[in-house]
């Protein structure tokens, strides 16, 4: 079953008087439970593609269906609801809420969904254990290492049991050992929760974790290489 279905997706950015095309007509389908990597050089359009799938950036034209729902013509409120209920994000810079501790950061999306505090706390405790940060549950982000913060981000992305987790270069700011452990964790969660993971990278070392690799260049998807 396809969780993402993209057709003829184009994205242009105005730059002064000129228009810079970031995506020139992308067609892509992603199946439920995929652990997919989007690779390509800087400026190829991989972040743009992830942002559009994640309902963060609107498409210029084309069709993007997430979980069977067209997302290109939704209101801000509807789009926010999709981001909250269907998608999890892992950012390159670990973006956590600085004033909340680890558990509070993880349960934050559940509280936005109006889940009961007890239920949210229970789920957060489960995930903090799964990402191996039980001993750091009440620490603030500033008290954690980069790798630990990214683990918190992964737990937070998974806490709502989203259909898709999008990760934009999740290991870019980590050393290779920590990066590998993060990818292993993502892979583990992919298998554990059957969540679709799409992550962008230009680090060849991380490709071995991907079940599927999509290569993008100059805003167009190239022929998919053989999965590892």
């Amino acid at each position, binding site marked *: 079953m396809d969780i993402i279905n993209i057709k003829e997706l184009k994205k242009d950015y105005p730059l002064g008087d000129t228009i810079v095309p970031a995506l020139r007509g992308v067609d892509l389908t992603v199946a439920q439970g995929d652990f997919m990597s989007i690779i390509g050089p800087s400026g190829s359009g991989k972040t743009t593609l992830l*942002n559009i799938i994640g309902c963060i950036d609107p498409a210029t034209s084309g069709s993007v269906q997430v979980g069977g729902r067209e997302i290109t013509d939704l209101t*801000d409120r509807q789009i*926010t609801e999709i*981001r909250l*209920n269907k998608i999890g994000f892992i*950012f390159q810079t670990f*973006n956590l809420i600085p004033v909340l501790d680890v558990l509070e950061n993880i349960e*934050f999306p559940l509280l936005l969904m109006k889940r009961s505090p007890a239920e949210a706390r229970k789920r957060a405790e489960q995930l903090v254990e799964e990402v191996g940060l039980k001993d750091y549950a009440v620490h603030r982000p500033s008290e954690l290492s980069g790798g630990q913060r990214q683990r918190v981000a992964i737990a937070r992305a998974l806490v709502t049991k989203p259909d898709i987790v999008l990760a934009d270069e999740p290991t870019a700011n980590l050393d290779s050992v920590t990066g590998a452990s993060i990818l292993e964790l993502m892979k583990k969660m992919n298998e554990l929760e059957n969540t679709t993971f799409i992550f962008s990278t230009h680090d060849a070392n991380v490709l071995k974790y991907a079940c599927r690799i999509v290569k993008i260049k100059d805003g167009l998807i190239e022929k998919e290489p053989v999965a590892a």
Partner: protein
Amino acid sequence: MKLIATIAWRNILRHKGKSLVIGIILFTGAFLMTLGNGVISGMARGIEKNIIEGFMGDIALISTAQKSDNILLNLMGASIEPINTYKKIKPVLAAQPFIKSFLPVGKNLSMVLDERSDTPGFAYLIGVDFAEYRKMFPDNFTVIEGSYPAPGERALLFPDFARGEFYRYYNVWFVPEGGGAVKANLSKEALADADHLILSSSAVLLGMSSGINTTNDIRFPVRGVIKYRALNQIFGHFCLVDIEAYRDCLGYFTAADMAAQVPKEEKKLLGLEGGDLDSMFGEEAMVVADYKKAPKKIAAEKAVPSDTEDGTYNVVFIRLVPGAGYDAALEKLNRDLAAAGTGVKAVPWNKASGPIGGMAVIIKGALFVFVMLLFSVAIIIIVNTLSMAAMERASEIGMMRAIGAHKTFIAGMFLGETAILSAAFGGGGIIAGVIAVRVIPLLRITTANDMLQILYGGNYFNPLLSVTGILLTVLQLALVTVIAAVYPMRVATGITPLDAISRD
């Protein structure tokens, strides 16, 4: 809600410096606003006490022929039209349940003549029945020299302030009959000439009233020297004289005139059965004038007749029952007075008191503008600080939006932060303001300046704060909080997840 409050509170603690700046502004604003409201309330109360309770009541009745409603301190002492219908007015006033008391008085300007000076002085006269005046305004002045006149006595009570002014310009120091200069009461100038003071225990007053050419110069014995409890520099221009002597002085019909000149049996002869005074100026006027001339001197020399209400007045001061609806009372009074054909109208005290009432309004307005200005500045500073904070936190806000926070959540977070700061610091400012309002009267800060006395709400600085006043301050603070949070909220809710990523 708890989540918003938690994040807002922790953000305040995280940005202690900015929070403190905003907090201090809110504290100062709330403190000054509370104190300002206290001063305004105290001033309103002070004006009420000083002018309404101490000088002219809530409402003044004046002749419908009177052009200006201002009858207290009118330009160049313009004369106040006479009222000859008090006998008709009295039952109308007595029938009103909302009227507590009323007092008819004469009020006009007089020249003060002195044989030792070529230039006349001037003084406002208030002609009263002394006994009734004391009932209406029991504690508005103290007699500092001499004594209070006996009922019906022809006498003059000279204000301490006017005495000082007279000495300054005419070198005559008025003292009560049989008394001498009291050193403690001498003005600075008089004290300098203490050994050569020219003392006078009587004053010759010549009434001044437009339209009447028959005013008289009358020598009044100074019975006492008085000092007004408050606003002495304003009220201190008003000499109190007995009403009959006042009428004599102004050339009005005295009660004695009325009693003596128109006995019943002669009314028939004069054709005055209807009590129409105007008819006295008809063909029979010559007869009346002749008749009037002889008994008048007798009347002036003997005791004042028992019913002084027959003569002419200029104003009737009215006190309302506490809690009476002011506008409704004024409206009903005017209606009933017109229906009774009294030829008078009721005007509110603030119009009747002219510049004093107006000054109070101006001071109140200025204070209000000052407080609002202060809060406008506070709003601008808070808006700037919070807006900058919103932009600095673009990554955090954008990330929150990316993971599913609605704009309302972000707006709530900012409003929450401002509300917590307002509640903590603004609330502290209000409490400090309330304490200040309670403590200041205990310090008994006094002033001799009359304008400051209006502001002070009495002889000493006496701000006053009611529960309504406190609630009003809380409401104003809430308004400031909301206004100050609106723009930063817009800035914050305008931050998109893409902004956060772009910044990274």
